[in-house]
């Protein structure tokens, strides 16, 4: 798992001048955490800057103040990561959620990442909870507090820890014999669970809940919050909740009686999560679809996208039955494959439904044919791609941003699509709504490119706002409008924005009918192989894409006005690591960066000027080939020498330290 600090710190020059934690501390020396070290560096530069008349950024001030308050070298409060190593299918998901939620309820910013195998039961799985008072919610590489429940990986898990990390483990594993620079807490989990229940199957599940009690006690979690979290988790299953609370209490009591606190990690109530929700991106997107007026959902199960449609089915069932008749105001079909899933969506979109599908890489490959049809015949469709690691089957349960380039041009011939790039659960929700509006406005497939990290992991967020804008159905002519116009040509650019008008099947009056074909067609929709008709059509489709530039969500640019010539660009779930990395660069190295977060394709003018205004551009993304960087180079032309890539593609969510290290490396090599 995560290697030690010494390997990953990537701060060789400064670190060498300041005594700090390498592999072991001299006896009696004050133990410094890396974050505290960073502050020292920052303090130094910060002061220098103040002399030069600069004002400190407020985030640095805050971090500084909090750090001062936390001077006690023996404690590291609300800023560390916990990793729970378990066996897939052992019920650990509930325990992990309860622990994470308890911390969240204590007002401490928290994020959870599930690292699971492509397997139903039996293979190793890890869950990482990061508590961070500063609010950084990207993955943190370093593990501070390990809960080793899986005999198979325990040894490797322990070996990968940094010195002074804490380990809670099943007593019989004897992990304390592996290393002597860690803090070990042996716990007889099986025995404790056995005291709560006699049932063998339950015992295994409850052993995981026992760990919540042990860890809760060791980290000073408030037990009332754990109880609340258990009740929330098991909702109406009262008996299960009681049993699980007993297991928590058994662990708690054991720790209280037998384990002397020797590690430095501690949780303390804060007030930074009040009013917030915890949700995964797929559920957020599902809610967006339900409130965005989806009417036809066609999908084929595939990890990591299945939960999007499954969650949506639950919400549709609850909130989208017709009041008078009780009948469904939607239709959901589990298709026979992804070809059919998008085929149904295209058919439904053509007939006027707000139709969507959700898939992942292998499904995207299969959807290429219908994507081209949708583009060429101008039919609205919404496709969610919850990206996983490719090529081919790849790593089905790991995350990546590796489909961007293929989706941008998905299908044969000159094809280009509108892409939305959500970074947060809020955007998964909002962009689901936007996607339907854009698909109907532009009469074309719209791809929402999420990923496994965003889609399946739990994220904190503000509650989603109710959509105030009415639904945009785009340019659809009614029978009355047709009668007034007296004629209708399906593919004529009437308004000069390259978006034609369409009609829906079933429209009376005799003027609405037209023929849709994936073969060459003229403005009236008639079959045509005339060179000029084909050119006209392709040119108008290109112009329509130009129109879309002004409609899609604009990038978010952030700059503190002290830019050092470095411009960072990222998108999707990479955003969180980039934000944290910018802070690291600023605080640790006094390197100020500007940042542009892409939210859609086609790009708009802001991207071009951002690239122009910066000496060096680093595009941060989670794939091997720098796919977005390639698209940006295509877009800006000429000035591409200054566009560099920072890449992360090992299947794990990107972390800030990796970004910082790579950036420094490339800056050094200039």
């Amino acid at each position, binding site marked *: 798992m995560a290697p030690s600090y010494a390997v990953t710190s990537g701060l060789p020059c400064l670190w060498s001048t300041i005594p700090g934690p390498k592999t072991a501390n001299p006896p009696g020396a004050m133990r410094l955490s890396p974050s505290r070290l960073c502050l020292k560096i920052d303090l130094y530069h910060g002061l220098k800057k103040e002399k030069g008349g600069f004002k400190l950024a407020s985030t640095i001030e805050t971090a500084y103040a909090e750090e001062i308050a936390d001077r006690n070298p023996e404690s590291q409060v609300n800023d560390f990561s916990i990793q729970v190593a378990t066996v897939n299918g052992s019920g650990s998901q509930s325990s992990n959620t309860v622990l994470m939620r308890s911390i969240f309820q204590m007002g401490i910013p928290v994020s959870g990442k599930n690292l699971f195998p492509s397997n139903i039961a039996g293979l190793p799985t890890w869950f990482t909870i990061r508590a961070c008072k500063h609010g950084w919610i990207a993955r943190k590489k370093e593990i501070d507090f390990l809960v080793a429940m899986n005999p198979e990986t325990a040894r490797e898990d322990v070996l990968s820890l940094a010195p002074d990390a804490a380990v809670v483990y099943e007593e019989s594993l004897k992990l304390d014999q592996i290393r002597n620079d860690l803090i070990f807490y042996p716990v007889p989990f099986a025995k404790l669970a056995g005291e709560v229940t006699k049932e063998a199957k339950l015992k295994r599940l409850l052993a995981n809940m026992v760990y919540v009690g042990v860890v809760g006690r060791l980290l000073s979690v408030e037990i009332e919050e754990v109880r609340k979290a258990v009740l929330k988790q098991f909702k109406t299953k009262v008996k299960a909740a009681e049993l699980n609370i007993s297991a928590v209490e058994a662990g708690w009591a054991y720790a209280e009686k037998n384990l002397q606190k020797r590690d430095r990690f501690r949780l303390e109530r804060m007030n930074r999560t009040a009013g*917030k*929700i*915890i*949700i995964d991106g797929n559920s957020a997107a599902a*809610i967006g679809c*339900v*409130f*965005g*007026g989806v*009417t*036809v959902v*066609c999908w084929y199960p595939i990890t990591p996208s299945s939960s999007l449609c499954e969650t949506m089915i639950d*919400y549709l069932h*609850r909130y989208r039955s*017709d009041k008078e*008749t009780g*009948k*469904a*105001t*939607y*239709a*959901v*079909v589990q*298709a*026979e494959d992804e*070809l*059919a*899933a998008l*085929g*149904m*969506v*295209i*058919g*439904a*979109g*053509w*007939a*006027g*439904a*707000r139709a969507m599908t959700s898939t992942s890489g292998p499904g995207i490959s299969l959807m290429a*044919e*219908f994507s081209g*049809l949708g583009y060429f015949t101008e039919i609205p469709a919404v496709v969610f791609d919850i990206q996983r690691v490719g090529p081919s089957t790849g790593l089905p349960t790991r995350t990546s941003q590796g489909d961007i380039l293929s989706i941008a041009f998905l299908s044969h011939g000159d094809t280009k699509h509108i892409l939305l790039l959500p970074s947060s659960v809020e955007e998964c929700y909002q962009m689901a709504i936007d996607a339907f509006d854009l698909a109907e406005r532009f009469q074309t497939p719209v791809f929402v490119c999420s990923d496994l990290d965003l889609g399946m992991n739990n994220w904190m967020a503000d509650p*989603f706002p*109710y*959509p105030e804008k*009415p*639904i945009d159905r785009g340019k659809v002519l009614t029978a009355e409008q047709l009668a007034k116009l007296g004629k209708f040509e399906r593919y004529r650019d009437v308004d000069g924005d390259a978006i034609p008008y369409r*009609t*829906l*099947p*079933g429209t009376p009056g*005799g003027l*609405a*009918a*037209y*023929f*849709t074909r*994936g073969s060459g067609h003229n403005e009236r929709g*008639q079959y045509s192989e005339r060179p000029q008709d084909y050119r006209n059509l392709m040119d108008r489709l290109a112009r329509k894409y130009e129109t879309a530039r002004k409609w899609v969500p604009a990038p978010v640019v952030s700059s503190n006005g002290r830019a050092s010539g470095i411009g960072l660009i990222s998108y999707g779930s990479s955003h969180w690591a980039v934000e944290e990395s910018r802070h690291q660069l600023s605080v640790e190295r006094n390197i100020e960066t500007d940042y542009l977060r892409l939210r859609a394709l086609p790009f708009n003018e802001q991207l071009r000027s951002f690239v122009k205004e910066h000496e060096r551009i680093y595009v941060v993304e989670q794939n091997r080939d720098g796919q977005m960087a390639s698209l940006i180079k295509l877009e800006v032309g000429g000035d591409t020498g200054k566009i560099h890539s920072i890449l992360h593609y090992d299947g794990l969510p990107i972390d800030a330290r990796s970004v910082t290290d790579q950036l420094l490396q490339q800056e050094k090599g200039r």
Partner: protein
Amino acid sequence: MPTLEKDKPKTNRIGLTLADYKGAESTLCNGCGHDAITSQIIRAFYDLGIEPHRVTKVSGIGCSSKTPNYFLNRSHGFNSVHGRMPSVATGVALANRTLLNIGVTGDGDTASIGIGQFVHLIRRNVPLVYVIENNGVYGLTKGQFSATADRGSKSKAGVSNPLPAIDCCQLAIELGCSYVARSFAGDPKQLVALLKGAFVHRGTSLIDVVSPCVTFNNHPDSTKSYDYAKEHEELLHEIGFVPYFEQVTVDYDEGTTQDVRLHDGSHLRLKKLHRDYDPMSRQGAMRLLEETRESGELLTGLIYIDPTSADFTSLLNVVDEPLATLPLEKVRPPKEALNEIMEELR
């Protein structure tokens, strides 16, 4: 000059002429079986007085899939991608359950590239009239065998087909299809009655029509030629369609005629010929097709019908009005609903 009454073209019950149901000029070969089928589709819509705007025409790719352009130019049409018409048609049916959907396909489009979608369309009982224009050959790519070509049938170049044929009717019955018929492009009277019955039936109605390819598969060694079909055709029954709006009580002999009542009150009237055959028996239908497969007969008529079947949109309990045009208040839950969801996530 005033038009004389006798010069006025005849109109149907909604005041449209036969020409109002026509489409563009066919670009298929002269004498193509598909054009004969197109004529009967036009005739069936005209006779029943169906409003063209209530109809959608969908197809895949191939000679047969071009034909929706040749009928009902007042209806929306969609010539989609090869073998995938069933999924497109499913989407259309879900978006607007008030439409009458007709899909035209070929033997390559259905039995080879599209067999997966064909199977699942039928399994779901999607409301769609599914017409296979079956000539046993790929016409547009110049004469390769399709998966419905009979074993031993020869190509124009004299090559014998070594593989057994897929019988789409047999497959459909196996999959639970509730309206299965076989016909021949050279038998317009039977075909038009089967089409009308299919227009009224709820669910997937399959009509497999032997439709000779005059260019690539009409030679003496072909089993899908006009001559072969004429020689080997055996009618299951004489079939007539009585629409609900023409209810005249005609006496018929229950011993020789079977009357199948369809859900809207129309009837299919089947006059027995040589066999005592009941198209309401699924087992009987399976046995019959197995027998004729061995005898090599081209058996035509209504092979199986279950007039009580529930179609896919009913199974999904979808609202009666088109999903496509539901107003905002029906497709966006109120603010309280979102608040409730958010509360649960806190």
